[in-house]
């Protein structure tokens, strides 16, 4: 029993990491049809920000707290810069954005290698986050890692903040308007250009937050983004493009599925089974779990 509970929690924590990564991607993909391959490098930027901050702030706990907003700003600024320099010239050409952002991602990786060196680096986690909490005691105890709880909390906070922004703020209304019908929004007096840039800033900033979370799990290196970006794309495609609800549900379902299968088989077999499941699901529901009701004619 505790094994099942333990694996479920592990799955939820893997899902939380996936969710943090997919959240920003879902926003930019959903709104602007931009396949942003450089999203993974924004995650890397957030992780390296944590690393740099830790060099000047000796308290690991404090530096982690400072890193969250700073990483959001750094990755967000990189995103806004990318949007301003390249992406806005490529609207309505999603395949071209794929190639261009892929090139940018390779350049950013090389830049990181030049600045921080080829070997991966580490950060120190605050003592509070290296331990674990025992939920069920006894012979067969169920423990959960504090760092995983922290990441889960971070993912929930990000979802809540994003969802409130989209629902309640004027910016959120404008974003939703642009997603539903770009042309109508434009003629209604909404500056879609500005909305796009802001949305891209927020989406990339969320990648920075994901980067901070990943420093608690593993090493920081130039290629860390590419390793996880594919999983994030799977989450948003299966969840339904641009659908927050779908992204959240699918991230957790895939996380739990992966961890439960991994427990009963091996890492590689679990990956294959999850991919087979996704292919089967997309045969049945090509549009993903949730679809957007749109007023567009096409």
């Amino acid at each position, binding site marked *: 029993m505790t094994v099942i509970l333990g694996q479920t929690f592990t799955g939820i924590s893997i899902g939380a990491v996936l969710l943090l990564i997919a959240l920003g991607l879902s926003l930019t993909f959903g709104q602007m049809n931009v396949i942003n391959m450089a999203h993974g490098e924004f995650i890397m930027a957030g992780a390296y920000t944590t690393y740099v901050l830790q060099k000047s702030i000796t308290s690991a706990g404090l530096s982690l707290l400072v890193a969250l907003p700073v990483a959001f700003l750094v990755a967000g600024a990189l995103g806004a810069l990318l949007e301003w320099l390249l992406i806005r010239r490529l609207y309505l050409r999603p395949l071209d954005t794929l190639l261009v952002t892929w090139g940018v991602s390779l350049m950013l990786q090389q830049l990181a290698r030049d600045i921080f060196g080829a070997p991966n680096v580490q950060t120190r986690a605050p003592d509070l986050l290296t331990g*674990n909490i025992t939920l069920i005691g006894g012979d067969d105890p169920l423990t959960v890692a504090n760092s995983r709880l922290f990441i889960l909390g971070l993912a929930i906070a990000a979802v809540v903040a994003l969802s409130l922004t989209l629902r309640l703020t004027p910016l959120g209304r404008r974003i939703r308007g642009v997603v539903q019908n770009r042309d109508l929004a434009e003629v209604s007096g909404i500056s879609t250009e500005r909305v796009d840039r802001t949305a891209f800033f927020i989406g990339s900033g969320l990648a920075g937050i994901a980067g901070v979370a990943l420093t608690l799990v593993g090493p920081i290196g130039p290629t860390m983004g590419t390793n996880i970006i594919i999983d994030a794309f799977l989450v948003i495609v299966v969840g339904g493009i641009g659908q927050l609800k779908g992204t959240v549900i699918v991230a957790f379902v895939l996380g739990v599925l992966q961890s439960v299968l991994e427990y009963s088989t091996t890492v590689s077999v679990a990956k294959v089974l999850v991919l087979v499941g996704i292919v089967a699901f997309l045969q049945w529901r090509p549009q993903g779990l949730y679809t957007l009701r749109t007023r567009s004619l096409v």
Partner: protein
Amino acid sequence: MAAAAAALAAAVALSACGAKTDAGGSSDKAAKADTSGDTVKVGLLNSLSGTMAISEVTVRDSLKLAIDEINAKGGVLGKKIQPISEDGASDWPTFAEKASKLIREDRVVATFGCWTSASRKAVKPVFEKNKSLLFYPVQYEGLEESPYIFYTGATTNQQIVPGLDYLKSQGKKSIYLVGSDYVFPRTANKIIKAYAKANGMKVLGEDYAPLGSTEFSTIANKVKASKADAVFNTLNGDSNVAFFKEYKSAGLTAASMPVVSVSIAEEEVKSIGSQYLAGQLTAWNYYQTTAGAANAEFVKAYKAKYGQDKPTSDPMEAAYTSVYLWKAMVEKAKSFDPEKVKAASDGITFDAPEGKVTVDGASQHIYKTARIGKIGTDGLIEQVWDSGKAIKPDPYLKGYDWASGLS
């Protein structure tokens, strides 16, 4: 006329082929090492860029230290050694290409280097074809011998088997195997399973993560649920960081379930962080803390040359030793000729930092002392056990009945 033209064309084509074969390898003249001048060239072949650079640059530095020391004392057979350093760039075809360049263009008398088994397998045919010598300084999975390679790192019976013997002596009856998904861990685990079967030890599980993988929460849960007495870790590189973070988060400690690692040395401990590793075990032949005057001198010289904060490690020590062993072989043979050097190799000894080592001419491996160490909070590794004497190398594990089915 047409027939004549065809014959001519064929002749040209044939001679072109001939020229190509000549340049490509078998001609003895072109490949012959150049020993005419006051200096002799040796090749240093290491990854100075790419994913392996972190480890291999330290080996290159260590090789240079040995060469400098030998040159300061007059060189080898009255000739100074001139190192030619090439970058294998963590890319196996590049290794093969650079090996060929060192032998054929620089006409080196011997080459020192390589780290991964993949790079060694890539250059092996190049050295064999050109009849030139390679000195390979890293522990590996065994089951190999080449007439033109000297192996100065440990083979399995000098590292993995003693690691298992140590666990057995500590009363550990069950183990869990965790490794990266490629040739070294899979081969090593085959050997470990055969050992366990013969020694009444239970293998409770075996998990491989893709090389470079950083998601270890499920593997940590499986290890924990298995309640094994110990873990044998053949993970390579950065995966170790994620694995040990998750291990600690899962509440597992060196006291409750010790991990024996065979790929974590001082340099890696420094980058993973000793707070995650303190108390865990490693199996090697040398540590920076290994006692003895030869090691004190080596550590002092290395730090003086490269910086006080630089640790020394097992592969660095094996590389340093390999240069001195080559020197001793050349002096005994009174020649740089690879065949004469090989013939003179049996029984050559050197007072290495790890202790006295002896070359076994038959397998071209060396006798090495096995050492189990415990990682300290300061990032250094303290020896907790050693084999007492240097162990005879046995790359094919012929001396072990339980290993008879392995290949």
